[in-house]
């Protein structure tokens, strides 16, 4: 994988994102969101540039980026499947579901299918505790998740995974 930082317009695009939030109170998180939207993750090369623009240091920016699990340090697959691992879902069999989904997809948490289409991530609470175990595929939420339902979601997303 080549870093987007080697693209000729990397700094221009980055500066544009930073400039869009100039003068705003607490600009760091919105900037990071826009960067992740732009490149699919937060490239390390962007962190010193953000730091310089905001009067911070790169260590501080890294501290924030690494604090939030949703800021990625490398690109995800085209789709991201999240399985809830929190207590309410655990009590409804989330652990067993996770084992079965991992087996079906042939990947572990934080991994991406070899074709680069799907990344599996754990998540701690989607706010669907009443109908656990729950999952999320892209923007779409899934309650009372089973391995079959999950596989269907994956298939609908054009994966054919698990097959």
């Amino acid at each position: 994988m080549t870093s987007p930082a080697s693209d000729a317009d990397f700094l221009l695009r980055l500066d544009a994102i930073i400039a869009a939030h100039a003068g705003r109170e607490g600009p760091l998180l919105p900037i990071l969101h826009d960067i992740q939207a732009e490149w699919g993750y937060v490239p390390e090369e962007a962190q010193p540039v953000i730091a310089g623009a905001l009067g911070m240091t790169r260590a501080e920016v890294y501290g924030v980026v690494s604090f939030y699990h949703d800021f990625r340090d490398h690109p995800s697959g085209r789709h991201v499947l999240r399985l809830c691992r929190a207590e309410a879902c655990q009590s409804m069999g989330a652990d067993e579901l996770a084992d079965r989904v991992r087996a079906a997809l042939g990947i572990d948490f934080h991994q991406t299918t070899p074709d680069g289409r799907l990344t599996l991530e754990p998540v701690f609470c989607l706010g669907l505790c009443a109908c656990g175990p729950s999952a999320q595929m892209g923007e779409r939420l899934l309650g009372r998740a089973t391995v079959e339902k999950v596989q269907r979601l994956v298939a609908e997303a054009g994966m054919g995974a698990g097959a």
Partner: protein
Amino acid sequence: MKDFIIPDRDMGTPAVKSDVIVNLTVDGIPVSVPAGTSVMRAAAVAGISVPKLCATDHLTAFGSCRLCVVQIDGMRGTPASCTTPVGEGMVVHTQTDEIAQIRKGVMELYISDHPLDCLTCAANGDCELQDMAGAVGLREVRYEPGQNHFARRDAEGPNPEWRPKDQSNPYFTFDPAKCIVCNRCVRACEEVQGTFALTIESRGFDSRVSAGMASDSFLSSDCVSCGACVQVCPTATLIENKVIEIGTPEHVVKTTCAYCGVGCSFDVHMRGEEVVRMVPSKEGKANHGHSCVKGRFAWGYATHKERKLEPMIREKITDPWRVVSWDEALDFATGRLRAAQADHGVNSIGVITSSRCTNEETYLVQKLARAVFRNNNTDTCARVCHSPTGYGLKTAFGTSAGTHDFDSVDETDLALVIGCNPTDAHPVFGSRMRKRLREGASLIVIDPREIDLLKTPHMGQGLHLPLRPGTNVAVVTALAHVIVAERLYDEAFIRERCDWDEFLDYAEFVLDPKHAPEEVEKLSKVPAELIRQAARAYARAPRASIYYGLGVTEHSQGSTTVMAIANLAMMCGNIGKPGTGVNPLRGQNNVQGSCDMGSFPNEYPGYRHVSDPETRAIYERAWGVELSPEPGLRIPNMFDEALAGRFRGLYCQGEDIVQSDPDTRHVTSALSAMDIVIVHDLFLNETSNYAHVFLPGSSFLEKDGTFTNAERRINLVNRAMTPKNGYEDWEITQMLANRMGGNWTYTHPREIMAEIALTTPSFAGVSFELLEREGSVQWPCNEAAPLGTPVMHIDGFVRGKGKFIHTEYVATEERTGARFPLLLTTGRILSQYNVGAQTRRTDNVAWHPEDILEIHPSDAENRGVREGDWVRVASRSGDTTLRAHITDRVAPGVVYTTFHHPTTQANVVTTDNSDWATNCPEFKVTAVQVSPSNGPSDWQEEYQAHSELSRRILPTAAE
């Protein structure tokens, strides 16, 4: 003198200043503390230690470890004592059954993820985690072995949570396996040092200390190796490599750092006669427990293998050195000195004192010239740095010194920084200034380069006036123009403290249209609008301070700029109250002291002129000899006279004039023309290549004495180990003097200080006893101020009325033209010190292995220079080669380098232009051309060859 003292107790949270006193009881003991103090500190004041891990009095309270919980009558739950402020009538219990349970539970959790390898751990016996486990009575850990950060591998294979040690920093090791994530290191890097190089990455169980970003190591991060994180780490996670190597120290000697003019107090942690580590003292009034990479870690030169420990002589400078006894060396030296005087007159020899040596040593060297050589041929390296400060401030205010103490920066609203780079050259003060800038003080920088202070994290926008080197007077006078034109001056102050008519005269002078910002913009290249903004900000700030350095003094108009600065401070009433003042940042540890001690050819100690009969009478009585009323030779005059054949002998203590003085070729030919050059130093330095006698010196760790820092603070230097060369430096000077009939009988530097106090009014109250009792004092220290004077000129100037002096800008003769179109200016870098004799002999070379030429991208492109290329820098005086670094920190037309490495010899290029008043060389402005090059210049190769030849030492005969 060895002090067998236990290092200060940690009070848990920093002291708080308040006029309101709060009374409370802690475990039944009544205690009174200033309002805002934490319950933890109040308990410490009462003599009670509350268990703690994340709290230390170096840092503001954080409240994360939950070990310091207490119970307070009338308050619910168990608040953390570090974050709970005291209240009137509070009743605090630090030990109850409930608290004991909580603390045990907390410790159990900490210990469940900590390797229990205490016996082989470098922090064994010096570990707060170990202490706290004892304090809370931890006897068992009920948690089963499981996921952890410390085991390299378990039964199933490598532990994915384990991380290897980071040993990238040459002085300390980071071992994440021992980390308890108390955050102290991160907070120290932020609050104390102000670098913000560390963070906690991730969160929860995955939280780890990280230097820089994921791909960084400690060395590649922003870390400046100040040691603050190592100092506050409660475990062995961050620990000095020397402690790992040697073990825990067993006694402490208090002393003062021998690097820059900040004058940090240190505790030397010793094992026998071996230094284990240097730790900054909390009670140090200049540094308040902080340090930089040089003082903290770069002391290994004292035991470096290249240090010379035996005297050596040679007939000619082309001969190899011959190791001889002290007797033979001193006889040889005195024989030649006397012969020179017999053949060429009493004025044909002289001395150069060192800003690196103690006050007592410096005093003796100038005394040697005056009382034994019987002339006033004494000068000091301050000639080449801050002599214009002495001259300018004495003329304006009446004393040759800065007006304020460092603490004053805590109260400033605006810092005007001119020609100095505190974060590199005065790092501990730089950190204090950064702290104040983060608190909201404004910053104006007048400097050709965009210095790091302007990039201080978390400060507001600084104002940078990137002037062309050599135009200081014009720019500072333009600031005065704006202040007068817009009537922003402080009339009441001027009327009371200065001469109003004199001010009106000066006002008329500065109002001349040629001093207007628009005119000055043409020559300084600083936009007029920036000059106006800066002038208004300085004049309007309630308390504005000026800090300046060699970028002001080392110019043909150095003294004029100092006076312009003094004018500016006076007209805005920025003198005599905290947070204001005119503060020169002195380059070397004892440059203030060496000036105070009468090193100059025209002044006795305390800046009294040699022609003054009363002062002369004092010394004639004290020394029992008749003294010359004629001022002696300044360093540049010594060289000129040497080339004319009239100056034949020089005793040079602890200064490397060949490397540090301008126009190296002129210096070396002058030295080559002398009959006797005596170098008294730790190492065979560049000057010793031209010497006939080498006297091995002692390091600051091996001597008693005092250093005086930039805020006039006299600090004690205490001997931590026996001099490896056999004698302290003052003893060697005394031996030399006595061989020439000096008849000196000092047995300890305290006797020398007693003589200084007896003969110098501003030092009348100073004694070793006072310094031992008070820690330090700031001169003037006499009957009027028995404990010294932190801020000068409070109610009136020392000279009476402050003096406004016309500051006419005269362009330097050093001009750019077709052949030399760029201006070279020079400076320092954090990890190296001055000529580098010490720091180059330490692991500090990890940060700065060679001198680099900074050049603007457009200038580089015009010359076909790429990053890292060898380039030739040529001036009218000479040329050298070094590598280029392309950066927009310097303006187009300006190039910058450091002078730490003798192979570069940046001073081959600098010229012999100098300050009109004091001869301080114009290091900061040299017209040069830069061109691509293949490698070292002819001069560098020639010099290298001579250097190797002249450092040969004959093998001593087998015994």
